[in-house]
């Protein structure tokens, strides 16, 4: 039961479909972390995301007409390897429209291991994540491509530091994850000159939990808050302008099935239209299916 519960937590963290948002490159990825007993894990997921509406910087959101609801499929590969009991490395990449999205790489350390599964005291991880902007951002759409569904990346390198805390109690589990960090300033070549953008800081905060329905099924859920500092842009004229900050609250439910001791199937639904307030963001609904495979040290 203990192994089951800890493995479930690992799946719960990495099966979040938040990376699949349609517009503007999606969210910063939740890091691929091993929180169970395995040494290596690989995840592949398929997500179908539909952009339902748009929240302005001020005022209430506007839900799109059916014909304007952009949908997109995203395939994501991620994995992690633990080479000591405390240290691990992970990475992930999105693929959309036969194009690479952004790549994320993370290193994590189990700083506070659990002393006992009978205790509620959580395990605590600290991690650093680097997001490499290999996708196509809204600033880099090729000439003749004018659809938001062409956007596969955020456009900026981002460095984040974060922490994950998780615990189990009988059939229950719970976790809290937080990460924050700045994105690096970057200049983009535009038809009418160079555009310099200072993207600012982003913070992701997530809490969630789950319940073992049986020995092979688990139902879980989570709520996130994503806060993004307002971008500053400098046009070729030299004038700096400030955009608006962004706030969105993705909520998700996750059904997990343990195929066997090595492989797991997750079905997740994430909705950004349930919790507010939201500001200056697109609002998506995403369904994803993920398959995970684990290797353990014998």
């Amino acid at each position, binding site marked *: 039961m203990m192994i089951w519960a800890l493995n479930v937590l690992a799946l719960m963290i990495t099966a979040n479909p938040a990376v699949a948002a349609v517009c503007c490159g999606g969210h910063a990825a939740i890091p691929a972390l091993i929180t169970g007993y395995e040494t290596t894990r690989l995840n592949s997921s398929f997500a179908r995301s539909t952009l339902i*509406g748009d929240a302005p910087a001020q005022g209430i959101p506007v839900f*799109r007409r059916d014909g304007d609801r952009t949908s997109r499929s995203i395939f994501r590969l991620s994995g992690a390897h633990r080479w000591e009991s405390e240290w691990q490395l992970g990475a992930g990449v999105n693929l959309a429209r036969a194009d690479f999205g952004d790549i994320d790489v993370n290193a994590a350390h189990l700083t506070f291991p659990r002393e006992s599964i009978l205790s509620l005291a959580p395990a605590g991880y600290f991690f650093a994540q680097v997001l490499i902007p290999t996708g196509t951002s809204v600033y880099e759409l090729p000439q003749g491509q*004018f*659809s938001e569904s062409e956007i596969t990346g955020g456009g900026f390198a981002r460095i984040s530091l974060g922490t994950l805390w998780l615990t189990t109690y009988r059939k229950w589990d719970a976790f809290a994850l937080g990460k924050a960090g700045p994105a690096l300033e970057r200049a983009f070549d535009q*038809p009418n000159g160079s555009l310099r953008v200072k993207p600012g800081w982003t913070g992701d905060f997530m809490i969630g939990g789950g319940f073992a329905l049986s020995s092979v099924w688990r139902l879980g859920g989570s709520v996130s808050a994503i806060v993004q500092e307002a971008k500053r842009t400098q046009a070729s004229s030299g004038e700096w302008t400030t*955009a608006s900050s962004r706030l969105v609250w993705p909520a998700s439910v996750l059904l997990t099935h343990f195929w066997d001791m090595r492989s797991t199937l997750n079905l997740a639904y994430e909705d950004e239209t349930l919790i507010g307030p*939201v500001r200056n963001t697109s609002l998506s609904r995403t369904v994803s299916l993920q398959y995970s495979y684990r290797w353990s040290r014998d």
Partner: protein
Amino acid sequence: MRTIVFAVFTFITAAACGQSPILHHHDAPETPSPVERVGSGTESTCPIAIGQDICATANWIIGPVLKTENRFRLSFTERLSREPIEVTSPIEVELWMPSMGHGSAPTRVTPVPDLPNTVDIENVHFIMPGDWEIRIRAFGQSGSVRLNL
């Protein structure tokens, strides 16, 4: 079971109290809202103020709508006399989403035969719904018009 009911109830309460988008939203209209002019001028006297002395008038030929190429015609006049001003220097038109910090580019500026104060702006693409600003640089000065799509 009681815990699950409690969790669901808490979630619904949080959604209701926090201005849940699904409970507090507008549906997009069937037709785009009319162009809202911004700048120092008023629509009747100076639809788009280009600096202090010049006015521009924008008339849509196609659009404005999403997901297709739009086109509009831009005419320049002196602000006080209302006399046409011949376009002798390059005109730049930029599409920008001020709240998002990005835009759509490039537009194409084409002179209109027999109308020396008028240009057609082509290759106008609004890639997503929201607040857009059309920024115009002409005669060494600038102005803008805002629209919501």
